[in-house]
């Protein structure tokens, strides 16, 4: 089945002057339309067999000699298509900074401490209703070089496949009420009206008593293309 087009009222453009790195890296010529063939109506399939036992629990999968520092959170939500149908058995990969705003990545030079008990990468597969669920530590904000006194808001990176290569999505989840959001060129590069979809909701009913604050982040992937009959 072919996939509905990318909605460019939702996705950021390739060139966005506020985010300086786009200037030399974003394609400048218009995209060429491609009629979807079997190559685009298929995509890699990853199931439970690719998961390790602690891949979904970032509070435990990096422990060396104790517990990671920071505020424990549970992040959950549904992966849906544009028609509102659950995207089942699809891989969700996440990575994030630690509570101090430092990434495990070797090139991160931010002068904030690494946490020996926090790795920051994980993954899970959605269930039959499209639900995913991670435990983690709330990531800290960190400075970056885009402009004077630039700071990234707290965020978790997400990578999803969905049913085909055309539904591929890499995005970031933000936290409600973050004062850095209105100053962040990566968030602001997203079309107005679509940005709010990147912000998770705090949910007391998801919060685990005595353990972790709950955030809900639903993700909508490209849906099935409308057939001429439906159009």
């Amino acid at each position, binding site marked *: 089945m072919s996939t509905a087009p990318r909605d460019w009222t939702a996705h950021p453009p390739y060139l966005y002057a506020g985010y300086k790195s*786009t200037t030399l890296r*974003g394609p400048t010529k218009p995209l060429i339309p491609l009629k979807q063939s079997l*190559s685009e109506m298929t995509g890699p399939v990853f199931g439970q067999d690719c998961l390790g036992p602690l891949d979904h629990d970032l509070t435990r999968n990096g422990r060396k000699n104790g517990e990671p520092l920071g505020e424990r959170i549970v992040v959950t939500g549904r992966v849906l298509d544009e028609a509102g149908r659950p995207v089942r058995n699809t891989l969700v990969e996440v990575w994030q900074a630690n509570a101090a705003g430092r990434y495990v990545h070797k090139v991160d030079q931010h002068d904030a401490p690494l946490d020996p008990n926090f790795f920051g*990468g994980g993954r899970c597969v959605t269930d039959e209703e499209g639900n995913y669920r991670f435990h983690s530590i709330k990531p800290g904000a960190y400075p970056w070089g885009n402009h004077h006194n630039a700071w990234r808001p707290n965020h978790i990176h997400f990578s999803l496949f969905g049913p085909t290569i055309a539904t591929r999505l890499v995005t*970031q989840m933000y936290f409600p009420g973050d004062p850095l959001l209105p100053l962040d060129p990566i968030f602001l590069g997203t079309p107005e009206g679509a940005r709010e979809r990147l912000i998770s909701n705090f949910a007391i009913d998801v919060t685990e008593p005595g353990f972790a604050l709950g955030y809900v982040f639903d993700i909508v992937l490209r849906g099935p293309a409308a057939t001429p009959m439906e159009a």
Partner: protein
Amino acid sequence: MALKQTPSQTVGPYFAYGLTPTQYGYDLPSIAGPELATEETDGQPIRIVGQVFDGQGQPIGDAMIEIWQADAQGRYAHPADSRNPNATFRGFGRCGTGTDPRNRFVFETVKPGPTGDGSAPHTTVIVFMRGMLTHAYTRLYFSDEAEANAADPVLASVPEDRRDTLIAKREDTAAGVVYRFDIHMQGDRETVFFEV
């Protein structure tokens, strides 16, 4: 449509320990890496090598490239392809450009067969990097498939003077068959990217 798409955001500079951990030496097994094929995989073993260049012609060291391809018989490992694909060949690879001294991506795979719909053998290529808020799709075709390429409807839809950006150049080396596929994000030789 009832719901609106979740916007894309950049993969950023620090994806490696989450998405390509094994390649970069982190303590988490990767779900996919640069090696798609083993010695047991049916088909012609090939290596796909390239660099990603920015608008000043500098090779980019923090890009991530994904490839998706059919097996040597042109079958995809996906339920939408009912033709019993090669069970040992998943057809998906992922490689960051930060571990090679020249910032190359290097995939070990087999040459995909024609899928039987009139298209020339090809591989889907997806480009992610810091400085791209949304990923970009392109296609890799093979320079030794001139006849099939000439009949390919997607190549035909591309302006003639830009088609060359989609053709990986075959080199026969002591180590085997290598296809060179450089990706130019901008400039005179800007790679063709598709609205998939």
